């Protein structure tokens, strides 16, 4: 197991390096000129040039890249030569737009994304897997057909549509829920758990409608297949009760692909659910990343891209390891 983990860790580092390199390169050939953008309205060529030097954009490509990487290992010097300041480890640079420390920006944005993710994942897992299981148990009957139909519908609803409709109905028209506010980042703040929930509920529902539709499908199909396996018949022949047969024998055996999906979706969502954050004005990683990318803010974009990649790879590894816990046949390898 340790050998396996070490190998995966090594692969992760290499992958992150590759991701950072590609992002950096794409930026070099991008159209936005951050120096000009940071300069503002009254810009003279001299001031643009000054800004360029201050941002380190006059350096050759590889020097810039090396400087960026050095910030990941130790502290780094930032700023115009002569007016340099220390940027403590881990230094991800300073935003070209706001000159804020990128690490601080991410630390601020992350709780929002986590709030969004946690609630949505719990909601779609409970609803998706629950309904999928229910449909599998009632296969062929009316309930099954309704659920499958609803999931087809749900899968075709894009987030912007669902999100806006929900906002319109529950916030705009009925006024049952407030607009999302930046004040509430976690259930541990002043507003408490209830405030946290009411703040993010609509965003969670919007995400859950889309994702649970997929989960309903996969769970249903998987469970139908698992229920037809021989060991289910044996369980019945032993005289086991219905609940034991369905949950202890059936669900446990069929859960593996769902765990995979969940892990990967979780990893992807932590990188920032861009559309949802935009629609609900949640200043999480996705929101921040979009703003940075459209304004040529290289350090911020780099940092969030790498963070997103890190989460995805991390959850991939977690999912692989969890297989060994669920399925003893995998442990041999």
């Amino acid at each position, binding site marked *: 197991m340790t050998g396996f983990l070490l190998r995966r860790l090594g692969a992760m580092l290499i992958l992150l390096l590759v991701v950072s390199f590609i992002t950096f390169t794409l930026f070099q050939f991008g159209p936005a000129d951050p120096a000009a953008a940071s300069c503002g309205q009254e810009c003279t060529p001299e001031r643009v040039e000054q800004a360029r030097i201050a941002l380190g954009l006059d350096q050759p490509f590889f020097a810039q890249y090396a400087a960026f990487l050095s910030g990941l290992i130790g502290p780094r010097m930032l700023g115009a030569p002569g007016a340099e300041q220390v940027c403590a480890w881990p230094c991800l640079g300073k935003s070209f737009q706001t000159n804020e420390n990128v690490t601080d920006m991410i630390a601020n944005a992350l709780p929002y994304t986590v709030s969004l993710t946690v609630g949505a994942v719990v909601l779609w897992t409970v609803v998706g897997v629950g309904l999928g299981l229910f449909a599998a148990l009632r296969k062929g009957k009316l309930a099954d057909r309704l659920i499958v139909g609803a999931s087809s519908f749900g899968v075709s609803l894009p987030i912007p549509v669902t999100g806006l409709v929900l906002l319109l109905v529950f916030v705009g028209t009925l006024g049952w829920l407030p607009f999302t506010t930046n004040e509430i980042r976690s259930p541990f703040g002043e507003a408490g758990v209830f405030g946290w929930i009411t703040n993010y509920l609509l965003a969670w529902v919007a995400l859950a409608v889309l994702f649970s539709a997929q989960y309903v499908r996969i769970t249903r199909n998987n469970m139908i297949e698992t229920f037809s*396996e*021989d*060991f289910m*018949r*044996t*369980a*019945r*022949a*032993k*005289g*086991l*009760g*219905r609940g034991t047969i369905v949950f202890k*024998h059936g669900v*446990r*055996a069929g859960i593996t692909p769902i765990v995979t999906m969940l892990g990967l979706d979780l990893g992807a969502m932590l990188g920032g659910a861009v559309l949802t954050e935009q629609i609900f004005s949640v200043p999480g990683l996705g929101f921040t990343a979009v703003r940075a990318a459209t304004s040529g803010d290289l350090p911020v974009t780099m940092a969030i891209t790498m963070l997103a990649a890190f989460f995805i790879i991390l959850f991939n590894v977690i999912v692989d390891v969890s297989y060994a816990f*669920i*399925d*003893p*046949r995998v442990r041999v390898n």
Partner: protein
Amino acid sequence: MLSVKDLSVRFPTDDGMVAALNGMDLQLHRGETVGLVGESGSGKSVTSQAIMGLFKESKAEISGEISFEGTDLLALDEDRMRAFRGKKIGMIFQDPLSAMHPFYTVGSQIGEAYRVHNKVSRKAAKQVAIDMLGRVGIPDPKNRANSYPHEFSGGMRQRAMIAMALVCEPELLIADEPTTALDVTVQAQILDLISGLQAETNSAVIFVTHDLGVVAQLCQRVVVMYGGQCVEQASVRQIFTSPSHPYTRGLMASMPHLTGEDDRLTPIPGSPPALLDLPPGCIFADRCDVAALVPGNRCQTERPQLLSTSEHAARCHAHEMGLLPATIKAKA
């Protein structure tokens, strides 16, 4: 102990109603081993599963009577049937690798089978499981109880499954082709095990198989099935010395044996029936070599009844009318 009367099971499929069982009869007494012999589509597995009540709450249409120690099993609902499964009637299946749950240890699965019907702690149940594994001949049972099914060899796995089926000491064991997927040397071990355990517990055994050799070795009585019906029932000796049904005779003539002459095998022409559109007459008629001897097209129009003389019953017009050619000593 067990009395199956006129059992019929039909399944709805995309192609229509499949008549898997068409009036099956079977009697079984305590301590008896009965072989249920047939090829694919004969209904032998369906019979064993129907006795276990595995078709309750499914789309199958069942009629007839299954009487076990006075109780009509068909009349029971799923919940009441559960009390019988594992406790009074145990079942072992053909492929132990797929029949056991891949994620739980063998010991826990056997312990689970015990705890369903006996209120004991998990620890106590595990000890029972270990004892049972030892009883079925698995070496080092204490450690092997913590192994998973895929970590056993084929023969050991089948022993574990037998342990699981017998842990509550049921009065009836249904063995559904338990050795078909095993090597012949392993099969021999398992057959020895089953007959040994049966002698110890005096339980009844229904042994479903297609192999007449296994039946000869293990069973006292034989029920030959074809097309969802019992076509012949007799003691083992009678079946082999004086088979009465043309199908049974055909089966014996087509089976290769290790002993005796190796002349040409005499196959039965055609293939086992499809069970979708059963003919009105005898289901075996289109493959039968003596149907022509029965006057008036009776075999094609009238379904024969199962008629018994003392211990030997056969479902055949030709036999009933005494038109069967003289008994050929079955090739031994």
